[in-house]
């Protein structure tokens, strides 16, 4: 595909489309153009081929929500649970809105953002926000690399020898020590939350509300540990996935609470028939078993990951 003479740019793979903002990358004659779109205006940043020193592509954990989002989700869920005790109608409406947003965010987590791409020049390192998927980012990096090497008159193979002269780190941080510590700490907490959810040996009232609180507790524990365990890697990905799973389980139990709320007889002119409480108790029991099963599975997955991550994450 050739560029039009009045628009000397060709589209590179990768773009970010948002409601408020977006970004894309374009290949020019002697530079790449990073376009940030804010709907009413566009901001441009040019990186000339002769100035590009390095391009970094860092794979990020998928299904791992950022800390602020996790905190907001948990607070929202708790607020709805509190509201469901005092004001049922408002809690139902808010619950549906919350579920809608959470589903959209879960879909966004699943579909987007698998890498961070940045470009280094003599003036510093800038992030290319449009390259957020590994496949597209690699295709874009390959195309940019060809043009950069042509412009700089070098070949890729002779660069490592030049870079070898750079100082090496004096000491290596012992890898994964903090992650492993908090990972092992996760296991008893997950099992404790499972016990809470199943209400096996504890004098907890046999209501779905208690089960939902157990699921929320599990989600909070997972979120805190994911935040502390922190940075990158498969560990955080698994933590994030489990967090989303547990939240979804909690939401399902919350839905059961809503069923219970609506199953009360409503006296508006005449009495409405409701499902029997036996059916509801069975559904709540199945939901709590599901949450407990998810938590036990989480514990096993975390343990398996912790046991095998040492050889699998080292450099080949």
């Amino acid at each position, binding site marked *: 595909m050739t560029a*039009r003479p009045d*628009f000397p*740019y060709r*589209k590179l793979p990768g773009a970010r489309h948002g409601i408020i903002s977006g970004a*894309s990358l*374009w290949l020019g004659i*002697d*530079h790449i*153009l990073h*376009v940030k*779109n804010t*709907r*009413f*205006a*566009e*901001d*441009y*940043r*040019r990186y000339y081929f002769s*100035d*590009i*020193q*390095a*391009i*970094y*592509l*860092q*794979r990020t954990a998928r299904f791992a929500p950022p800390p602020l989002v996790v905190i907001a989700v948990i607070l929202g869920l708790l607020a709805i649970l509190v509201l469901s005790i005092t004001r049922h109608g408002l809690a139902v409406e808010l619950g549906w809105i919350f579920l809608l947003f959470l589903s959209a965010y879960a879909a966004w987590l699943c579909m987007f953002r698998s890498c961070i791409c*940045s470009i280094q020049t*003599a003036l510093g*390192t800038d992030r290319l926000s449009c390259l957020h998927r590994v496949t597209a980012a*690699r295709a874009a*990096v390959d195309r940019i*690399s060809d043009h*950069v*090497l042509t412009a*700089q008159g*070098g070949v890729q*193979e*002779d*660069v*490592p020898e*030049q*870079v070898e*002269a*750079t*100082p*090496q*780190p004096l000491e*290596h*941080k012992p*890898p*994964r020590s903090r992650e492993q510590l908090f990972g092992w700490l996760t296991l008893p907490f997950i099992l404790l939350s499972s016990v809470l959810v199943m209400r096996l040996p504890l004098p907890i009232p046999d209501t779905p509300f208690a089960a939902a609180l157990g699921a929320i507790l599990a989600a909070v524990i997972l979120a805190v540990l994911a935040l502390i365990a922190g*940075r*990158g*890697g498969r560990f955080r990905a698994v933590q994030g996935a489990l967090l989303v799973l547990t939240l979804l389980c909690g939401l399902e139990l919350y839905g059961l609470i809503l069923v219970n709320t609506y199953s009360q007889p409503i006296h508006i002119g005449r009495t409405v028939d409701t499902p029997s409480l036996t059916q509801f108790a069975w559904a709540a029991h199945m939901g709590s078993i599901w949450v407990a099963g998810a938590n036990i599975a989480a514990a096993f997955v975390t343990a398996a990951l912790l046991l095998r991550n040492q050889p699998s*994450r*080292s*450099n*080949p």
Partner: protein
Amino acid sequence: MIIACPNCGRSLPPEVINAPELRFCPACNSNLLVRVFPANSRAKAVIAPAALALAEGDASCFHHATKRAVSSCSQCGRFLCALCEVDLSGQILCPSCLESGGAKKKIRNLENHRTLWDTTALLLGASPLLLPFPMLYFIFLTGPIAIFLSIRHWKSPSSLIPRTKWRFIVAIVLGLLQVGAVAAIVALLFYSSRAYRPRFEQSKTIPRGPVRKR
């Protein structure tokens, strides 16, 4: 320059750099693909003082009378020394032309910001559809403004990247629909008031009783 891990900031070993596949940083275990180019290890270009010295019979720079001219500005034609010349996409420019070109947006490669009038007009035109509750009361404003912006900025530079005019067309259509709706509402109010007046006047002129003849 040191090639450092973007996650932990520690320098990366050679086997991670320019590897065909993603590798792990030994310090923080980030999964990375790093491409390093010759510009990273290239020394900064330094202009030798001898290259700037003015010899007998050489043309001098317009801005520096004691420096030797090596090129001329492609816009104004002034002679430039190696310090003054700016190479911009194969075009040699002097600092003043560069500054004026950037200020007047004559040089495309110096533009860092553009307003998207077509999107603005489109959003104004579609605002009663997107936000019906507050914006429906302002259609007497949004429609004409959308039409005005579309006509006023039809030929204005829109974006550096390829972009068609369909937003302007849709904005004009939506603006015309809004103007038409406003006109229809005004006409409806006007004719309904006209149609109501005779009955009102007729009701006021109901005979109160038999007219007495004096």
